[in-house]
């Protein structure tokens, strides 16, 4: 027994052990813990005395659940923000980096300690939840789903707050961030409690297939966001001369592949597969991809010394790794590769029962791809030479959404000035929603040449930095091999 424990103890994440020990000694955690217990007891008693017997279980469970949700989705992630905030300061991070721990282990340790705290709180409230089950009106299955979902989202939120805590070390900004996170967590907890109670009130919803589809979609979306936050946190503590963007780039490819799989599964499952649905999902995918690519396309155009050392010795191989190497030029290569893979698969091997030669399928997909490439590719190359500086980088990232907003608003404004009704009502190519409507209606308003021109322009604008990036790779690969 003792040997088994030593074996486990040795393999626990050191940060987890440290943080749990610290949390157990900290007032914040003990306060949270005590408060949850006291509130659950107090409110529970109150409810028990006042409510009529049919609903008793649901109301009691709902109350205890509210306490649990507030603690696990509100206070625990918030505590993760505070704890990580202390740990991200340069001095402490340096001390951690001097040990044998890898960045991923450090972030995982912090995350696991949040999960452990949530589990401890659940454990404390378990007697109350048990009591609720004895009362009439609580469906065990629903309650289980609600609790599991809560714990999953508690972990997701902790990922986000851990990543958010390194955004800035500026005191004032940290306070603002803290306020914002506090508010968001509170709001999120409120929504979660409302949803949880809604589910308890209508347990038969769960018999529905659609409920599970929605559940899976929400959990997977949250998971993708949390995974990005996790990878970003790891990247942040990795050395700047190392390839910090590779994990994020790989994750983008994985998420894109997952979306593709989801589209195929969904089309296989639904009774009436629909090409418009595929195009709509692809549009959704393109929209979300603009976020990571706005970051990849604005990375500083240089290879750190460690990146150069890690390059494959053969020049050709080094060139082939371009999409995964840091730098905006290489980011553009990744964008092209991702688009080619995602849309290529959808076009060449369409989902079951979807006809790729139906009117709107091909134009729809090509339109999505064009908008994605144009949205992130027009403004970013202009900043390429100065993105080493953080303010320029931030500006470069923001330039993409600003460009999109301008493309939407400027023609409308022009329409307002010249009293052009169509432009005034956002009926122009700068508005992707309108363009997609046109595609579905099959009345391509002559938008194709414009989009095509846009894509060609973006390609021309980005060719110089892509070439520069590739040259850098080639020379670096060659210099390390000698």
């Amino acid at each position: 027994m003792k040997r088994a424990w030593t074996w486990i103890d040795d393999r626990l994440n050191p940060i987890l052990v440290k943080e749990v020990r610290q949390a157990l000694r900290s007032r914040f955690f003990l306060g949270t813990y005590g408060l949850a217990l006291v509130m659950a007891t107090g409110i529970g008693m109150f409810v028990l005395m006042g409510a009529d017997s049919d609903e008793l279980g649901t109301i009691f469970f709902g109350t205890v659940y509210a306490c649990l949700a507030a603690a696990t989705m509100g206070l625990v992630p918030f505590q993760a923000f505070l704890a990580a905030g202390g740990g991200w300061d340069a001095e402490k991070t340096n001390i951690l980096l001097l040990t044998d721990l890898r960045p991923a282990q450090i972030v995982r340790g912090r995350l696991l300690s949040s999960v452990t705290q949530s589990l401890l709180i659940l454990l404390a409230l378990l007697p109350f939840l048990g009591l609720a089950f004895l009362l009439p009106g609580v469906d065990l299955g629903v309650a289980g789903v609600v609790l599991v979902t809560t714990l999953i989202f508690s972990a997701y939120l902790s990922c986000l707050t851990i990543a958010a805590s390194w955004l800035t070390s500026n005191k004032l900004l940290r306070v603002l961030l803290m306020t914002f996170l506090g508010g968001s967590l509170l709001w999120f907890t409120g929504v979660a409690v409302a949803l949880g109670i809604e589910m308890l009130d209508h347990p038969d919803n769960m018999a529905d297939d659609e409920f599970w589809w929605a559940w899976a979609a929400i959990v997977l979306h949250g998971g993708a966001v949390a995974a990005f936050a996790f990878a970003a946190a790891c990247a942040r503590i990795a050395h700047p001369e190392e390839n910090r963007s590779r994990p994020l780039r790989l994750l983008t490819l994985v998420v894109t592949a997952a979306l593709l799989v989801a589209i195929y599964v969904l089309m296989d499952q639904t009774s009436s597969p629909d090409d418009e649905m595929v195009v709509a999902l692809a549009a959704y995918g393109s929209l979300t991809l603009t976020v990571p690519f706005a970051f990849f396309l604005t990375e500083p155009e240089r290879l750190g010394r460690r990146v150069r050392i890690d390059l494959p010795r053969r020049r050709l191989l080094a060139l082939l790794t371009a999409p995964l190497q840091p730098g905006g030029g290489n980011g553009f290569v990744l964008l092209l590769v991702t688009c080619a893979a995602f849309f290529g698969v959808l076009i060449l091997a369409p989902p079951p029962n979807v006809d790729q030669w139906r009117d709107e399928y091909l134009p729809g997909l090509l339109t999505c791809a064009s908008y994605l490439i144009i949205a992130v590719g027009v403004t970013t190359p202009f900043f390429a030479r100065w993105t080493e500086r953080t303010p320029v980088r931030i500006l470069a990232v923001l330039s993409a959404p600003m460009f999109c907003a301008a493309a939407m608003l400027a023609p409308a404004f022009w329409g307002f000035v010249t009293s052009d009704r169509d432009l005034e009502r956002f009926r122009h190519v700068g508005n992707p929603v309108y363009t997609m409507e046109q595609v579905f209606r099959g009345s391509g308003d002559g938008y194709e040449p414009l989009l095509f021109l846009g894509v060609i322009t973006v390609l021309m604008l980005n060719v110089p930095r892509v070439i520069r990036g590739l040259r850098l790779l080639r020379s670096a690969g060659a210099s390390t091999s000698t």
Partner: protein
Amino acid sequence: MSCLEVQSITRVFDDLKAVDEVSFSVEAGQICGFIGPNGAGKTTSMRICATLDLPDDGDVLVDGMSVLSHPREVRRRLGFMPDYYASEPNMPVADYLDFHARAQGLRGPSRTRAIREVVEFTGLGDLVAKDCSALSKGMRQRAGLAVTLLHDPALLILDEPAAGLDPRARVELRALLSVLAEQGKGVLISSHILTELSEICDVVAVIEQGRIRASGKVSDIQRRLQPDPLYFLRALAPPDVVEQRLLEQPGVHAPRQQDQGVVFALRGQEQDLARLVHALVAQDLPVVELRQLHADLEEVFLSLTDGKVQ
């Protein structure tokens, strides 16, 4: 093979060359003093050796492992004590050590043993139960040293470990470092307190404005700077007069006044010294003190650096 081999590293911040083609090496069992004025680039160089920063050019080998290509292997072989102490709230020293031992990958009995040994060695004793954010300066240094020793590194890099310590704590630190060197570890230690270093360092590297001004044994550097032996002479006469008389003698050069007497260099052998004393006494100069000055780090430091701060 050297324990630490710094090969012409350069580090540029914006347009400031904080470290400029710095090279030196530390052998196993050697204590190397790294001295230089404020802003000379000591911390920057040490951070590069400890893999926390990367040189823009050049490389550092720790036990033959490059900080550029094998940072993890380097980290396993060295213990770095920065010039600050990062304490953790709500954590006794024992847990702090336990955490670092785990983070260094020590498991089971070997972890317990490593912790016991470093606690014994650094004399932390009963302090292990104290909260680690509530330690005094001296105790922090001990805790810091204990952390760097946990994984039994071959090379120790200590950034200003003696700063802020009282004389007794300094003597104790010195004793600890000597023991570590005897165990065959290489030690690189930076400090401003030169007297402190001269007593324990086998070799020194003097850095100023990012460049190494001299490195090697203190006596060797001294000899290179000042090939002739230095003497101190005091007489019952004003130092001006003494200096004047000395300059009249053959072989005397570079005199300067110090502590009511005169320090000067004398070209030649001991016979020349005897001849000088004879001549001075023959001139009725009432000499009361004459002694040879030995290589002094402070002396070396002051003559090598010109006090410009970056």
